[in-house]
């Protein structure tokens, strides 16, 4: 999947996001969140704009953007499936479930299916530890996953 966004457009839209949020105390994370919300990822071209507007070095902004797992430097698939891989989910067969989902999608973690429908991400705890194993599809949560539910979830994501 390719998204074409003109460079000038990215700069202008980023500038407007910064203008909205710059009055916050410590505005960089909220700005990066908003940029990612706007474009689906944090485009390289947005970084110098943010740096200039906040009077930071470009290296500082790059350093922050790359430190956090949430920020992507390229677009995700149409749906993002996050699978919890932490201990509580491991104790309920989370590893086997992860293998099954990877096989169903034909991809590994941090990859997107060829048709651009699903990006698979690992997540370390959704706070659903008493109904493990759990997953999140586009912000919706699912608990007590078994093979059947996992298959349904993948089918829903691929639609």
């Amino acid at each position, binding site marked *: 999947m390719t998204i074409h966004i003109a460079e000038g457009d990215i700069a202008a839209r980023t500038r407007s996001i910064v203008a909205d949020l710059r009055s916050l105390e410590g505005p960089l994370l909220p700005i990066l969140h908003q940029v990612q919300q706007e474009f689906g990822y944090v485009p390289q071209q947005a970084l110098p704009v943010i740096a200039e507007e906040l009077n930071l070095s470009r290296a500082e902004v790059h350093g922050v953007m790359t430190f*956090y*797992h949430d920020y992507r430097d390229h677009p995700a698939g149409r749906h993002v499936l996050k699978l919890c891989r932490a201990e*509580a989910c491991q104790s309920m067969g989370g590893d086997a479930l992860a293998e099954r989902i990877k096989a169903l999608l034909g991809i590994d973690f941090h990859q997107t299916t060829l048709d651009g429908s699903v990006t698979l991400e690992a997540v*370390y705890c959704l706070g659903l*530890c008493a*109904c493990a194993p759990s997953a999140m599809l586009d912000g919706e949560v699912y*608990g007590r996953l078994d093979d059947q539910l996992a298959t349904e979830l993948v089918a829903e994501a691929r639609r």
Partner: protein
Amino acid sequence: MTVKIYVPRDAAALALGAEKVAKAIAQEIVARGLDAEIVRNGSRGMFWLEPLVEIEVTGKRIGYGPVKAMDVPALFDAGMLSGGGHPLCLGEVEDLPFLKEQTRLTFARCGITDPLSLGDYEAHGGLAGLRRAVSMTPVEIVKEVTDSGLRGRGGAGFPTGIKWKTVLDASGERKYIVCNADEGDSGTFADRMIMEGDPFVLIEGMAIAGLATGATKGFVYTRSEYPHAIAVMSEAIGIARQAGILGPSVLGSGRAFDIEVRTGAGAYVCGEETALLNSLEGKRGIVRAKPPLPAHKGLFDCPTVINNVISLASVPVIMERGAAFYRDFGMGRSRGTIPLQIAGNVRYGGLYETAFGLSLGDIVDRIGGGTRTGRPVKAVQVGGPLGAYFPRALFDTPFDYESFAAKDGLIGHAGIVVFDDTADMLKQARFAMEFCAVESCGKCTPCRIGSTRGVETVDKIARGIEPEKNRVLLGDLCNTMKFGSLCALGGFTPYPVMSAMTHFPEDFVPAPVVEAAE
């Protein structure tokens, strides 16, 4: 009279289908022309019963669960609205043993009230603590919290009153209250449940902290993995502001306090208080060396109280009922109640608030009902990914800070993850090292490099490469990480690794190489 039907909006209930159930109930109400309304409450914390639907009948709450959407028409046919019998009927919810035996102070309202109804909140004792605080001096409030014996529920167990006193005594034109809601430990969900199920109690606790220390601004720093908590918390803050609980004059006191919610960006280390402060400032979440303490130089170099959600949410009840009331619960130097989070491979998983002092075995076997898979319990990890794995042999350990420390463990944020006998403890030790390697902020060498070397060393043991020598090496590496790391991420990773190796040595012996047949 309009019948009230409670359907939780807690994320775990939603994960088990609460939304579909609520929709199905709404349809039945319309189709049958009934006089009933749906209240979206928080969760009672009995997740094996979720979605747990409750009906208020003559002042009592009758429960049905776990309810699936397809059960709904039959429940209406069976007279659910008047508490009618049905195989899913649980009787009066308050009488269920799991709830009845708890001492709910911090979670007193969670699952009972509509999280976004201020009227409901006040009707159930809310704001009484803040009203009392408004009439007191900062010194008096701090003394009340100190006398209660409350220790930080985020894991470190530092006395909350002493932290507050340091900030009160510190000079600064601006002071902050930062709520650490970056609940990233596997097996923990108490912070999430409070934010989703009773957000006003956290707001009230933070406002009291503001009055006590002279701070005028508060931040709730939570995780991007918790979208439901962020939504409820943000909405509740808006409601509190409208009602004058937050703003330029807290409850008309003339003293200002306001709160802002901030969302992290997927970095576990930001649960460490100084990394969290850097993240709030818009920097990489790298830990700071202490001193200076955040109480002296915290957020933007200003004096800052940084407390966990549960610590802050425990303050209103202390202010309402007095320090002595709270202190009378617990054992030794662990006072008050602790919300245990029983999770993983367990039959009755959920939130269980009780005074400190139950034995681990009591919690796992009796309250938790053993494993969900029905197999024997092999290990229990207490305190998140940085907590020790306890074998059955240590099940008599009382749940308090000192007793767990004495057995080379920690209670952390009181998350308890149960594993059955299929667990491979070498694999779990490897995971702990790998997690530390991925999540290390990179500032200090023992954590950054030690964790990567740790993964390699565990792999060598698994492959049978000089296992004896590598077990010694792993112990040495853990020792370096424990005493040489700047923060708990590198410093505590040795707990799961060493406990796995100490208590389950059989898993650290390489499998004999199978000879090819014939």
